[in-house]
């Protein structure tokens, strides 16, 4: 009976999910937190929702230093400073990358809200930086033009 087969498949699927969850556990325990859902998001808005930072308002206190034109998308230097007092975290996103979220940093114990990193960019895109300060979220963007993409290698 087809109905029974459905049931069996469902049961098998559920069992598989449990097994996988069990296998992944040791790694998860070893890891600090890594926001899998946010990093798997295919749009910047989704990623920000999943980071818990939706509806950020534009703020000129976030300074993005990056070249206007990046010749090589495989290595695009991006420097971010937040001048917003009490900034505790900074997220960097490249809107048009397959997975826009590049990195997220939490700052504590006297670390300044500053980070410089090299990102890969598949194509010309806005770079979006979201800073969190005092439970509020702020955003700034800057367009970087890419002449050679960096995601395919």
């Amino acid at each position, binding site marked *: 009976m087809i109905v029974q087969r459905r049931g069996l498949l469902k049961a098998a699927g559920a069992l598989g999910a449990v097994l996988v969850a069990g296998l992944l556990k040791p*790694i998860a325990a*070893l*890891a*600090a*937190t*890594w*926001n899998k859902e946010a*990093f798997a998001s295919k749009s910047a808005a989704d990623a920000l929702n999943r980071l818990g930072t939706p509806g950020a308002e534009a703020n000129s206190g976030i300074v993005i230093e990056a070249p206007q034109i990046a010749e090589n998308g*495989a*290595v*695009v230097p991006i*420097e971010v400073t937040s001048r917003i007092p009490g900034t505790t975290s900074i997220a960097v996103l*490249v809107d048009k*990358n*397959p*997975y826009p*979220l*590049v*990195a*997220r*940093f*939490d*700052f*504590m*114990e*006297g*670390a*300044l809200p*500053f*980070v*410089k*990193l*090299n*990102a*890969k*960019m598949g194509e010309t895109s806005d770079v979006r930086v979201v800073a969190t300060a005092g439970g509020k979220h702020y955003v700034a963007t800057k367009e970087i033009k890419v002449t050679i993409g*960096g*995601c*395919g*290698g």
Partner: protein
Amino acid sequence: MAGPMKMRATLAGGYTDVRVLMTHPMATEQQTKGQPHFIQNLTVKVNGKTVVEGQISQAVARNPVFSFRLSGGAKGDKIEVSWLDNKGDTNKTETAVA
């Protein structure tokens, strides 16, 4: 897989500048046909206290270089940076502020 790391920590005007290089392929899903290999977590500690926690994706360039700034700081402070990738590899390096 865990290649060498390099780090330099220097006192600048009012803050400590930490620059760290990690040796890692940072291979994306596209480059590897669905078997990405990249660093996911990195931690910066000063004298044993965590000051920066980072989560990063495959969109960080190969052999990642990061700079961080720590307010204040003194010569001899011990800075430790460690990372963990999606396959469970890990590495760390330590240096004193110069």
